[in-house]
């Protein structure tokens, strides 16, 4: 009973935040709503005994990524409220409508048709839901997936270098791009 209560409260928080992200006029409000969703997801992770991931979710997502978003919003000064700038590309609104309605219909059909969504045998490698969650995750990361883990470090280095290259001030030779804008 308590499980269901936690699930429903966290789910309501998640969905409210998600709708807030896409409906808020001000990008700052979107970012704060995103934090709300991420906290709701962290609660769901705890409810499923993925404690390490819940901590990482709060620290990395809410603590780092959203702060990065807010930092860029403030840096660029795009935090003034805009109207809900619905897309002006022809057909895109219909595409969004079709995507949303179609996905929800498929989802509803799945719930109705498939009572039990999970098929497949249980793992024999040890329980994922014991108090040893962190130890099991570490063993999986550093033994079975160690090459992928090393590759992520390479990915992060590339991302940092790319961000520095992209965000540096444009040099003099690139400045004419700004003037060209007026003629177009």
């Amino acid at each position: 009973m308590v499980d269901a209560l936690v699930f429903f409260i966290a789910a309501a928080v998640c969905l409210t935040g998600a709708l807030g992200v896409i409906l808020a006029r001000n990008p700052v409000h979107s970012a704060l709503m995103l934090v709300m969703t991420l906290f709701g997801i962290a609660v769901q992770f705890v409810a499923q005994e993925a404690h390490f991931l819940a901590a990482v979710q709060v620290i990395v997502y809410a603590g780092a990524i959203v702060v990065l978003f807010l930092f860029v919003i403030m840096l660029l000064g795009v935090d003034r409220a805009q109207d809900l700038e619905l897309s002006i590309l022809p057909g895109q609104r219909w595409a969004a409508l079709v995507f949303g309605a179609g996905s929800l219909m498929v989802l509803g059909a799945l719930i109705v048709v498939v009572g039990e969504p999970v098929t497949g045998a249980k793992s024999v490698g040890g329980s994922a839901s014991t108090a040893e969650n962190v130890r099991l995750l570490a063993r999986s990361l550093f033994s079975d997936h160690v090459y992928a883990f090393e590759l992520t470090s390479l990915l992060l280095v590339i991302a940092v270098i790319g961000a520095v290259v992209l965000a540096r001030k444009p040099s003099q030779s690139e400045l004419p791009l700004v003037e060209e804008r007026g003629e177009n």
Partner: protein
Amino acid sequence: MDVTTGWYLVLGALLFVIGGTGLLIRRNPLVMLMCVELMLNGVNLSLVAFAQRLDDIGGQTVVFFVLVVAAAEVVVGLGLVVAILRRRPGTTADDLSTLRG
């Protein structure tokens, strides 16, 4: 009343759909990036639900990698947004259709 795996999958799918719809209707590149984060979180929730149900830590390992890749994606995406908005203030995603090859 037990919370079954299906409930978590439904919540994850709803988050994914909301994020995808937002990606299509919003034009502010920053908000579009946030919508991508929403979609990734929906998938993460499904992966953790499967990991819990099948007692397999592999699902949580994948979530860890998704987190890392999402962080890298946000760093590069925000770098692009800063670079574009610095040269053309107030631009939206649709205005970038002038980028032809």
